[in-house]
């Protein structure tokens, strides 16, 4: 297969912008699973829920920005309810967390199917983004650049939050030693609930943005969950930079293999994951604990 330089650039750029979407979708998962070690298998369903809620709001108002805000807030609230009512009961027990959130994903997925049907849907992004942007060497869809920008913003925001704020210090301390942190008088449960809501908010944002980027249908939740898992595990649990690196790896592998060997995308992805884990069991940038 003969590939020109421009095509090569195009595939790379596609991979990088897709990595942006992946990082955005996985950012909430990095917080909850990577940092707090809460196995949230319902992560994918939050994404899908955001996309469908966005669809409902769009049908009612016709305003994409309203979808984005409304549906992320609602998903953040759902995350709060889930954490406060159910997950707190099984906190610290990996097995029961896994099973409980799997059960929730399974149930909500079936309800969404009942409510919205099985046909693929798509949100319409504002015309502002549908105009192509000239990058000098090639013309590129504006929306994809917007996605990349938002994900870079989320990454920087989370980095600054964890590094410089009081909440960030509490989270890092709580992740390292939960009991000692609460023993010095910090309400660790409240901080963790806050993080869970923040994760819900980001997942909600990514659901609406992702739903305008590629079509979604029942089953997309599992797709998102798997990709988020690969991103977070490839990069290493608890490492924000690792998640970014993981997203970039997955995005590029996905973009190149879809162009060159479309039938084997999944094999390349999982093959990479297994290889990385075989040689670095804690991920690319993860630390053993």
């Amino acid at each position, binding site marked *: 297969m003969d590939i020109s330089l421009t095509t090569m650039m195009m595939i790379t750029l596609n991979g990088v912008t897709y990595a942006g979407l992946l990082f955005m979708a996985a950012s909430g998962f990095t917080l909850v699973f990577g940092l707090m070690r809460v196995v949230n298998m319902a992560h994918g369903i939050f994404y899908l829920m955001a996309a469908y809620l966005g669809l409902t709001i769009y049908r009612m108002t016709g305003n994409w920005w309203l979808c984005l805000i409304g549906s992320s807030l609602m998903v953040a609230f759902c995350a709060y309810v889930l954490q406060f009512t159910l997950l707190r009961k099984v906190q610290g027990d990996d097995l029961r967390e896994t099973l409980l959130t799997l059960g929730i994903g399974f149930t909500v997925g*079936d*309800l969404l199917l009942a409510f919205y049907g099985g046909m693929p849907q798509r949100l319409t992004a504002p015309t502002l983004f549908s105009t192509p942007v000239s990058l000098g060497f090639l013309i590129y869809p504006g929306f994809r650049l917007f996605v990349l920008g938002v994900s870079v913003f989320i990454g920087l925001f989370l980095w600054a939050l964890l590094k410089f704020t009081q909440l960030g210090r509490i989270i890092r301390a709580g992740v390292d030693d939960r009991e000692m942190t609460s023993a010095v008088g910090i309400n660790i449960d409240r901080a963790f609930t806050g993080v869970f809501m923040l994760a819900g908010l980001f997942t909600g944002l990514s659901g609406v943005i992702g739903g305008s980027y590629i079509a979604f249908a029942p089953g997309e939740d599992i797709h998102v969950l798997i990709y988020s*898992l690969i991103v977070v*595990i490839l990069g290493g649990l608890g490492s924000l930079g690792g998640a970014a690196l993981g997203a970039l790896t997955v995005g590029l592998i996905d973009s190149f293999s879809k162009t060159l060997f479309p039938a084997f995308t999944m094999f390349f992805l999982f093959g990479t994951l297994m290889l990385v*884990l075989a040689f670095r069991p804690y991920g690319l940038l993860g630390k053993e604990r």
Partner: protein
Amino acid sequence: MKRFSYGGLLAVGFLISLLLPWLVPNFYIFLLTKILFLSLAAASLILLAGYGGMLSLAQVAFYGVAGYIFGFCSLRIGIGFMPTVVLAILGSSVTGGLFALIAVRTSGLYFLMMTLALGQLAFFGAFQWAEVTGGYDGLVGIPAPVLFGYTINSGKAVYYFTLVPVVAGFYWLRRLVASPFGLALQGIRDSEVRMAALGFNVKIHKFLVIVFSSTLAGLAGVLSTSFYGMISPQMVSLAAAVTLLFISLVGGIGRLEGAFIGALVYVLVEDYASVITNRYNTIIGIFFILVVLFFSKGIADIFRPRKKKKSPQQA
């Protein structure tokens, strides 16, 4: 009152299972057969998760590999029934072995994620490798098994055809978990470091139990594929893995025989709920959540006599 011995209870259960097809209408024989191979699949998970401490979402992958090999060979390559079965089960064992080579290096959550990755790889593989797997539709019209010149296609015949390997599988599993290997495995589940310090080779034990478990899941996959006469990607999906977890969990993940109770509950709920509503998955999901929250030892635990708790003053 003197309690019956547990072994005696199992023997009675086995006798009942031999007689049951003559006592119930044909439709229930169909459900009973389903319970049998589902409970074998769940037992393979209980061996891994309950006795080995390795929760797995990959059992459906082993189940599927065996099912697809069985389906493909019966449809395209005529090598006779028994060689096909052996090839299919061998396929799932080899898959399990290859997977175990990498997976024994991980534990806990990382292991779970590896199994999820393998399960999904099988699912997407079943979709994408359409020349062999039939893609979305799967492999359909797999002929009924022919044993010693008899075609096994009546309800009762299929029941007994399923019962024999399932009972054999359970008998072998019970022997396995009570053997020195099984005891060492439970030791590893409770404390890897301590067992390693005692001189046990932790990795070999984990490797072997993954292979055993994948072999049994493969057997269940063959039985299921031959029962339905088809296999499709749906049977390898995450939803199927959750179903299997549901069965193991409802029966109680700490006891092999719990698998029968779990499968019984699942098949009944699925059958009755699907008559009332299309949303039987919602009902199963809510049931699942309730079990996780309130009966983490399985609903069979309700019937077990409670040990009286000592009050602090007595102790």
